[in-house]
């Protein structure tokens, strides 16, 4: 079997495919696994030797070829066509497009394959998704929605790898480990810092990083600070070195294999929304503290590892869209995150203390796993965790399972879910959680009554107007949406009641 995984965005987006690649290899051990990415992701090649062919498209070169009048008009067209022709020689059985962009959809449409999962277009230009999970993602492109899964979970579920453990491991070359032996001081606790991100809206200021390092350094002498950076960032890194003097820091201007080797030996990574946080998932030792600022969408691309902490601003516009300029006079989300707050949390993480954040407009959230494998991130409140768990598990059942199977497994599902939730639960919160569940239940029942009424009106309209109405397709789509929402809501109610029963029993 020949499988092609298409990831045409930034490096971090490709790193989020690592569990998918490892999962596919486990499920189809004799298959040929290939990747198609932009050239920015090629740095991952030595870390993923299971990939046989790594096709890459130089986005900026192709784009500049389109815009410059001295480059033949057909050059970019021909180059893309030639690349796809080469890919088609492989005769793929399965193409998985994990990138939800029109560009990737069109490119995947040109690749011949027996089966396609993820966005592609047919000859009439109509989109296809090959999986209810990618259709779900398509319907939730809106940033304001909270009903969303982590992208890694979407990839895994869409490829029917839902029960496969998310394996983030990368093949670390020995050369990388020996390269970093001169950087890491094994006698100390290592705090690794990634200063920059791909977007100014997501980047915490250099002065804040300096203050953070000084704060942490003043609390413990047994810390080593390793600062990661690219060659182009040397000046910034040197400036940081000056700002934290006389405290020593180690600059690591290295390639991705060496970064992974550093993370393997780190105790804590502090980073913005970067590819580095996804690479850190492969390290058993390294805890992750993510500063989610600007357009960082922690709900879809947050640090994946259970126990990671995500600090985010709770101002109303957060997270904003990637393409959108900051609507505020200054980056309020960045300003609200002080060095003092971040150093407090970093210290608590380093020394296994309870995480407490006392800062206006800043929310600390912990990453956890529910329903065996599903990522969720909650604001240290069981109510919040239960809400997310109910929402995601019912969606998961709805998207992956037949309704009869899903209903039949509610008892065991609810039992397991409660076992997972109870690990994050304080007994003194029992009463408030019971009240919260009653409140959620009444909301769900009201929602169901409303949707039953809407569905009735739709059916009436369809039978009255018949097939002649130009709105028929829209109505049918609406009807489907209502049916799915009803199915999901039924499952959610059953799960809620199962959890409430167990909670009441625990109360006795």
């Amino acid at each position, binding site marked *: 079997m020949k499988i092609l995984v298409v990831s045409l965005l930034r490096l971090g987006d490709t790193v989020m495919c690592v569990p998918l690649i490892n999962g596919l290899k486990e499920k189809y051990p004799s298959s040929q696994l290939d990747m198609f990415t932009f*050239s920015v992701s090629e740095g991952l090649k030595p870390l993923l030797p299971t990939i046989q062919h790594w096709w890459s498209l*130089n*986005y*900026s*070169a*192709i*784009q*500049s*070829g*389109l*815009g410059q*009048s*001295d*480059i*033949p*008009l*057909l*050059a*970019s*067209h*021909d*180059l*893309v*066509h*030639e690349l*796809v022709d080469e890919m088609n020689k492989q005769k793929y059985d399965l193409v998985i497009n994990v990138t939800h*962009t*029109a*560009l990737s959809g*069109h*490119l995947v*449409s*040109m690749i011949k394959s027996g089966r396609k999962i993820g966005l592609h*277009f047919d000859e009439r*230009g109509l989109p296809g998704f090959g999986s209810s999970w990618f259709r779900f993602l398509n319907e939730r492109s809106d940033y304001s929605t909270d009903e969303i899964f982590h992208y890694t979970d979407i990839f895994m579920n869409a490829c029917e790898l839902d029960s496969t453990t998310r394996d983030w491991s990368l093949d670390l070359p020995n050369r990388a480990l020996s390269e970093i032996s001169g950087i890491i001081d094994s006698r100390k606790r290592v705090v690794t810092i990634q200063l920059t991100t791909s977007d100014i809206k997501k980047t915490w200021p250099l002065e804040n990083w300096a203050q953070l390092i000084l704060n942490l350094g003043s609390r413990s002498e047994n810390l080593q600070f390793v600062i990661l950076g690219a060659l182009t960032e040397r000046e910034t890194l040197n400036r940081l070195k000056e700002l934290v003097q006389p405290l020593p820091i180690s600059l690591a201007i290295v390639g991705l294999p060496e970064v992974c080797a550093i993370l393997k030996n780190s105790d804590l990574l502090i980073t913005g929304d970067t590819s580095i946080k996804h690479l850190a998932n492969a390290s058993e030792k390294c805890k992750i503290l993510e500063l989610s600022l600007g357009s960082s969408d922690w709900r879809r691309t947050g640090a994946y590892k259970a126990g990671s902490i995500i600090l985010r601003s709770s101002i109303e516009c957060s997270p904003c869209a990637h393409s959108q300029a900051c609507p505020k006079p200054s980056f309020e989300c960045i300003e609200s995150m002080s060095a003092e707050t971040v150093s407090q949390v970093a210290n608590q993480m380093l020394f296994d203390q309870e995480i407490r954040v006392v800062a206006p407009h800043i929310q600390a959230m912990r990453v956890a796993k529910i329903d065996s494998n599903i990522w969720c991130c909650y604001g240290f409140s069981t109510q919040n965790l239960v809400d997310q768990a109910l929402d995601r598990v019912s969606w998961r059942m709805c998207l992956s399972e037949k309704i009869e199977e899903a209903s039949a497994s509610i008892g065991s599902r609810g039992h397991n879910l409660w076992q997972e939730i109870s690990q994050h639960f304080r007994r003194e919160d029992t009463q408030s959680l019971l009240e919260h569940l009653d409140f959620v239940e009444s909301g769900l029942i009201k929602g169901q009554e409303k949707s039953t009424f809407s569905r009735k009106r739709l059916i009436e309209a369809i039978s009255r107007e018949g097939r002649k109405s130009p709105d028929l397709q829209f109505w049918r789509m609406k009807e489907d949406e209502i049916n799915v929402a009803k199915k999901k809501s039924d499952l959610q109610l059953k799960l809620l009641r199962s959890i409430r029963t167990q909670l009441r029993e625990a109360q006795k």
Partner: protein
Amino acid sequence: MSLVSKEISPFGESIYSWKGRRQASFYNPHAEAADWWIKSRRAGLDPKSYFVLGVGSGFHIRRLLCECTANIVIIDSRAELMAAVKGDFNWNPERVSFSGCSNLSQLKKDSAVASSIKQGSFLVLDHTVSQVLDGAFFNEARSWLVARNWKALAWQRKLRGLPSGVGDRAFESAGPLLTIKDLDFAMPDATLSALTEMIT
């Protein structure tokens, strides 16, 4: 009287002049060629062919041969100079073609030009020293190879056995220089749709 003259550089290289103008550096033609490549190359674009406008003294072609695996078509209107450079080095005939064209009509009929256009992706590189005395021809040749106008594009598509794609709608939509959006409008296909996404 010959328009081409030849000097031997201090390092034993043949340096040609055209109408008294040297076509390469006398003292360091290889460094000049390396510099030409740095300025001319399009990082990230690896075409199947290069059209080089201007034969010069051939040093830039030799550099290009080392830098890529693409085929090279040299276009120049100075037949005498071209013959001199052609005979001066052991050019690989499988990769290098010399197309002596002094007008557009000859360029359009040239078999090496047609073959490279048919083959697929290509880029056009200028050797400006060569172009000083015959700028009009080189400008026209560049314009037809770059094909950012409907007539040149129709010629290239015809060479590839494709319908010209030029229709009234296309003429109406286009600005002074054709863009990929104009093409997508006139003759949509999946590749053009993908490329259009890169500029929106």
